């Protein structure tokens, strides 16, 4: 390995002197180069969760529907009918910042492998993206290429991309976030764990050939802030090959269906090193790996290169000797290279062998479990961390008539059509609710029930209040599920934060995890898995703390899945409200160039949950014809979205909305104020007027207007506001599309 003579190798590899000394202690000697490179990966933040593991312990991981919790490649919940749904979200932030198309594409490839590694057939992908403001060329370039990369991989492999979210904030200018979530289905008995068992069993590597891809890639990248010398990391960009992964996927599932495998594990970050040591660790055994047997794409690769290579589209499995031939035959059928590269031993050691000579010999426990876990020293910052954004609002502050169309065209609110039309959202014939049709994607199950899934995490609100902002993110997902009639089964998350060694980031992280834990408990929803991405702060300081939440739920009857668009002229419109909205930290406040508030209002969590259950039941019982939760842009934007989605107007009386705080708020707060716990429903008047808040729950349910016409009319104390649907549709449709249209991409 070539690093300046000045720095000792372990530091160049991201290990502290103390960590190095501990390695020497555990080894009883100085590690050789192969061992050092492997330790440096296994003890990296990405693999060892050095700065997050202690916090993650707070997250509830028990639940009624839980089948497989954190610790496996993906978590899984029971969806009835003998079926399980496995899901997980993972980040590919740094690779995407270096090469957005391939970075995003291989991000999707990686999370899909986690899904079929547990024996589930991938049925859906969602993406969660964060960029700087789209008026910047670099941000537009990243957006265009990341979206194209996600589409390229998901579309080509035949897994629908059914949902996602995109936010644009200056805080992401230097650090875009690219998180991908995937879901898969499996019969309960096909769920597979990664533990290597049975000494004497054979270790088979199958899939793509091993090249010098991402040598010291993701793991090292993910553990050090991106420096000026990104270029130095470029030669090792990983190229995604969805065609190879499609064959790998079909091959893996056939191997499992034929019960030919003892265990299965994907190769992700840290390649063979982490996949093999994780398998050995989970089985409490050892492994011998013969690097000379690994099929290579490039000649003359060093043993350490083979062990740390992050070449994509590879899997590792443990097979009983008697089944090896059958396994190789299935791989042959799928044109997938498969090679026996080692065996399970009872040594408790991971041994790397080259042409009979041992070039690495490490206790598995030392590699996997002995990395020191660090306590954070969180300190709430006394100064604001994030500068106020520039004012971009063209309308006067009190010109609410002009503000609504402008909000609808704002990058964070405008239609995502230009993005989701680049994704195949329908392959596999399960998509009951497509993008823009409902607040959550709905996927049909064989028994006529359905899965609903939503992904969310507003970094701005978490930046304003890490605890309450994270609670809001979880409840936002639950609200989305409620609007299609689904009950949460399990949650996954990806914690995207800055450098945890800095006290204010440590505080953000600590508060955010505490909020997530409390919100999950409030909703009786376990965390089944996730991912952590730290050190997202190159150049312009830390990103907004961004816990991306993915929530998966179930509804008993797919044919009753809710829609967000108003449906029928004459239907009544009702507003359900559990908390009163406010402007600080809102989209409008951002457009007005206001700095983030120091904290968000406290919420009555029982009331939030009550509202969610009321809406869920209303949708399930067919009482409503539309349900939409109020989020960015507040009530006025939610009404406009429901009207545009249904292609029909509405008349609403603001005074009737009320809210449990009686004093009437300024008009802009009533129209554009944000906060969890507000829903817009429509349906037959006689049914809607029956809706009542359960006793003792602090909740208002009011019929406030009627569906009809081709304009949105809002009555308020001061008079009546009216917008033709066209005057709202145009800015909403163009807001993001325009940013994408002027970027060119030759096929990557």
């Amino acid at each position, binding site marked *: 390995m070539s690093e300046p003579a000045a720095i000792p190798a372990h530091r160049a590899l991201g290990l502290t002197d103390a960590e190095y000394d501990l390695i020497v202690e555990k080894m009883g000697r100085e590690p050789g180069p192969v061992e050092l490179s492997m330790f440096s990966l296994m003890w990296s933040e990405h693999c060892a969760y050095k700065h997050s593991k202690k916090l993650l312990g707070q997250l509830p991981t028990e639940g009624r529907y839980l089948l497989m919790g954190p610790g496996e490649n993906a978590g899984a919940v029971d969806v009835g009918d003998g079926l399980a749904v496995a899901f997980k979200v993972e980040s590919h932030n740094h690779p995407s910042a270096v*090469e957005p198309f391939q970075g995003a594409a291989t991000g999707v490839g990686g999370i899909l492998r986690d899904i079929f590694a547990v024996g589930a057939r991938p049925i859906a992908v969602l993406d969660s993206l964060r960029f700087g403001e789209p008026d910047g060329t670099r941000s537009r370039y990243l957006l265009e290429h990341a979206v194209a990369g996600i589409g390229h991989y998901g579309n080509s492999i035949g897994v629908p991309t059914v949902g996602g979210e995109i936010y644009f904030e200056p805080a992401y200018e230097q650090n875009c976030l690219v998180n991908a979530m995937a879901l898969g289905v499996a019969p309960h008995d096909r769920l597979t764990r990664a533990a290597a068992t049975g000494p004497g069993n054979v270790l088979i590597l199958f899939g793509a050939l091993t090249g010098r891809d991402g040598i010291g890639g993701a793991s090292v990248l993910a553990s050090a802030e991106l420096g000026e010398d990104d270029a130095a990391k470029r*030669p090792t*960009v990983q*190229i995604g*090959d969805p065609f190879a992964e499609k064959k790998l996927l079909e091959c893996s599932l056939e191997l499992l269906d034929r019960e030919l495998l003892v265990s299965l594990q994907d190769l992700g970050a840290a390649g063979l090193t982490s996949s093999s040591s994780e398998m050995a660790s989970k089985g409490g055994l050892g492994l011998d790996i013969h690097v000379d047997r690994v099929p290579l794409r*490039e000649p003359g690769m060093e043993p350490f290169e083979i062990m740390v290579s992050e070449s994509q589209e590879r899997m590792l499995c443990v097979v009983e000797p008697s089944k090896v031939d059958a396994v190789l035959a299935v791989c042959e059928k799928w*044109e997938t290279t498969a090679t026996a590269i080692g065996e399970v031993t009872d040594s408790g050691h991971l041994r790397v062998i080259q042409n009979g000579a041992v070039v690495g010999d490490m206790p598995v426990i030392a590699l996997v479990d002995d990395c020191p876990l660090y306590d954070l020293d969180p300190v709430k910052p006394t100064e604001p961390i994030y500068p106020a954004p520039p004012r971009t609002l063209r309308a006067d502050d009190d010109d609410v008539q002009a503000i609504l169309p402008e909000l609808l065209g704002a990058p964070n609110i405008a239609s995502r059509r230009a993005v989701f039309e680049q994704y195949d959202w329908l392959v596999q014939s399960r998509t009951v609710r497509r993008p823009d049709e409902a607040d959550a994607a709905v996927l049909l199950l064989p028994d006529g029930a359905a899965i609903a899934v939503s992904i969310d995490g507003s970094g701005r609100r978490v930046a304003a209040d890490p605890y309450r902002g994270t609670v809001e993110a979880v409840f936002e997902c639950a609200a989305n599920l409620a609007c299609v009639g689904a009950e949460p089964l399990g949650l996954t998350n990806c914690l995207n934060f800055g450098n945890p060694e800095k006290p204010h980031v440590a505080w953000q992280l600590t508060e955010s995890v505490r909020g997530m834990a409390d919100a999950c408990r409030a909703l009786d929803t376990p965390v089944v898995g996730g991912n952590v991405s730290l050190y997202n702060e190159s150049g312009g300081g830390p990103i907004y703390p961004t816990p991306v939440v993915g929530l998966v739920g179930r509804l008993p009857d797919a044919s009753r899945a809710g829609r967000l668009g108003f449906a029928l002229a004459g239907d009544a419109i009702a507003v359900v409200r559990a908390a009163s909205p406010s402007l600080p930290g809102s989209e409008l406040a951002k457009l007005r160039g206001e700095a983030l508030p120091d904290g968000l209002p406290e919420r009555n969590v029982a009331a939030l949950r009550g509202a969610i259950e009321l809406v869920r039941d209303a949708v399930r019982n067919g009482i409503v014809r539309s349900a939409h939760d109020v989020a960015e842009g507040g009530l006025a934007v939610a009404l406009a979205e429901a009207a545009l989605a249904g292609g029909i107007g509405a008349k609403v009386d603001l005074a009737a909305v009320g809210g449990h705080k009686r004093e009437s708020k300024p008009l802009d707060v009533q129209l554009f104020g944000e906060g969890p716990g507000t829903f817009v429903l429509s349906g037959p008047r006689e049914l809607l007027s029956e809706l009542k808040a359960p006793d003792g729950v602090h909740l208002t349910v009011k019929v406030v207007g009627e569906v009809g016409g081709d304009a949105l009319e809002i009555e308020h104390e001061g008079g009546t506001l009216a917008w033709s649907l066209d005057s709202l549709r145009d800015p909403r449709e163009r807001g993001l599309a325009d940013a994408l249209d002027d970027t*060119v991409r030759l096929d990557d």
Partner: protein
Amino acid sequence: MKMRVLIRPKAGILDPQGQAVERALPALGFDGVSQVHVGRLVELDVADPAQLPAMCDKLLANPLIEDYEIVSVEQAAPAS
């Protein structure tokens, strides 16, 4: 001036297209073919060829994963 830019995957970078073609050819009865790589060809009329390297770095090629070579059409051999 009529120029050509030949763009190909950097050495050592995975080239799925090249692999797919290399796999397909024997089945069609073409043997003895190896080292197949698939890239892009850009032909263009450019007033000032000195601008080409900059064009390649900015738009035509992806310097992270592709090498390029600039050829003037006169220099290139004629069609067979």
